[in-house]
């Protein structure tokens, strides 16, 4: 049974202004559904979930870890391990009988994530598509130290200078990402079949191939792997009992956010205030009551 139907899949650049991006998105949604559907609930996820949630009066405001797990399970119900590597973060989610039982997320360092690969690709003057293709053409990946992005780069230059082929180096980078992931994020976790791989880096065939080789199993990559969070939060919103009044008029309302530094003590909490047509509707970020902004 397919519980959801995707009507519109698109990626909107934030350009530093999530509220504006959401407005554009809403206009597109309005056009797509063309009065055939009614919006009864809204869910948000990701780093701007709280801000956009306030804007759209969302009933579900969920962190991306839970949202991803739920989204993936709706498409691969028997998944046991979800590997996710994005631009700056990477996580592992362990599932047993359709329930998340353990997860881990990278903490201090972004080595072994998408930005690591893209910066190395830039160094080799490849675009990321070529990079993916080239990695698959090598049978003999070069060994590259991947503990730290900076050291990986000097290792890479060294390997190129002593005469390793470019495609071997590229494949070596993919292998380095996989090793880094398994040693840091996946450390101590038992990775069981079926394995689902998602996030931006899952589009890189070289990395997929290395994961399959290293784990000695098929790694499942869904074409909608990059929007699992959105799917997950949509499912959660659907499960909500009460409906909200949703109106597309929101695109005409002016939302403004302002970061204010509280000066009541040396913590200088940064308080985010959200104004709807110049009226304060929500505020957060204060550590204690002294910094609470007055919401009417």
């Amino acid at each position: 049974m397919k519980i959801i139907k995707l009507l519109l899949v698109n990626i909107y650049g934030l350009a530093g202004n999530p509220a504006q991006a959401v407005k554009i998105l809403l206009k597109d949604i309005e056009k797509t559904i063309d009065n055939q559907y009614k919006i009864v609930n809204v869910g948000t996820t990701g780093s701007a979930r709280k801000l956009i949630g306030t804007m759209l009066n969302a009933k579900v405001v969920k962190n991306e870890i839970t949202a991803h797990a739920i989204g993936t399970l709706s498409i691969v119900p028997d998944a046991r391990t979800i590997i996710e590597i994005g631009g700056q973060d990477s996580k592992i989610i362990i599932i047993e009988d359709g329930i998340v039982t353990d997860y881990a997320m990278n903490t201090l360092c972004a080595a072994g994530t998408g930005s690591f690969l893209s910066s190395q690709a830039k160094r080799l003057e490849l675009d990321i598509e070529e990079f993916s293709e080239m990695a698959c053409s090598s049978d003999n990946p070069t060994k590259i130290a991947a503990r730290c992005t900076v050291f990986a780069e000097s290792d890479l230059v060294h390997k190129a200078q002593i005469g390793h082929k470019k495609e071997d180096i590229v494949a070596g980078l993919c292998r380095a990402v996989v090793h880094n992931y398994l040693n840091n994020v996946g450390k101590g976790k038992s990775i069981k079949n079926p394995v689902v791989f998602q996030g931006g880096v899952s589009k890189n065939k070289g990395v997929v191939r290395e994961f399959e080789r290293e784990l000695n199993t098929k790694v499942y990559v869904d074409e909608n792997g990059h929007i699992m969070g959105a799917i997950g939060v949509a499912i959660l919103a659907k499960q909500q009992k009460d409906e909200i009044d949703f109106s597309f008029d929101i695109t005409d309302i002016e939302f403004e956010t302002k970061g204010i530094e509280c000066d009541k003590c040396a913590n200088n909490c940064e308080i985010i205030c959200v104004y709807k047509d110049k009226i304060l509707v929500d505020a957060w970020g204060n550590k204690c009551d002294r910094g609470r902004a007055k919401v009417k």
Partner: protein
Amino acid sequence: MSKQKTACFPQIANYSIPVDMYVKNVLDMKTITCPMTTKKTLELGSKHSPDYVCTPFKYSLGNYIEAIEIGADTLIIPAIGCRLGYYDEVQKTILEDLGYKINMVNLFEHGNNIMGIYKLCKTYNPKLKIKKFIKTLYLVSKTVIYMDIMEDYIRKNIGFEKEDGKMEKIYQLFLQGIKKSTRVKHVKKLYEKYFAMLKEVEIDKPENPIRVGIVGDLYTILEPFGNCNIEKHLAKKGIEINRPMTLTHMFGELQNEKLLLKQSGKYLKYAIGGNATDSVAKAKMMAENNIDGIIHIKAASCTPEITAMSALQNISNDYKVPILYFTFDTETSETGVLTRIEAFHDMLIMKDLKEVR
């Protein structure tokens, strides 16, 4: 006659209260409460600390500098256990290089047994009578025990309060009250009064709430500023928090390494330093008691706790209890911590629902 010294103990939860009692009575010094730890404290501390030292070093150094600025000339440190045992010397040198003229008193300079502590007190206060010493020790330990019992009750129930903030208010009143106490009788009376009040606070606690255990290095689990108020955030979600590691515990069980190793069972063969042996022992104990999840907290570069993590991972696999690991650095963002806690909570709820079905 020389001027009476002004002592200060860094902020570690509310424990400066019993430490101040001790310093006043047996070391014969005045005490001042160090200014509340804020971001500025941490900035000050990090600026003058080696980069790779553990976070508690930076916090306490910041506390000391701010305390000196409001008039402290003697700094109290309980240097014992892990690397902390050397921190008095290092911090003293750093502070002297900064141009401050201070005394550093390591409470355990002559060892942590009763004779060693007495010897230390005699060096600072030669007139001290053994009777007063024993009496103060009794007063201080009783105060710590009472505080820990109350805090434990609060941790387990504050998430279910009907009216937010009531328990915290009552506990603050208790703390204000004991600050002036000089006798155990008085402290006990206050404890009985306020604990009864705490128990009267209306709570709405389900029969089987979600229970989360906390283990990790002592400083970071004790001091809320050092762990981004993690307990508060957990409680807000309606979670019962179990934390067997307290200061009471530090002076009791924590001294008994053999016992801790026995409690850790097959997960540890020898003690791993600091209070990390205890982290493993307590995690195992909680896992055996069917706790829903465990959160392991450590300060950045805390070596004993890094060692503990491998043992904890085995416990997690064997007992099927999820463990969430946190490292708190000087630049840890509270948002990141919140996201992870949220996901952890969601996971525990889903697991719970499944088991009920």
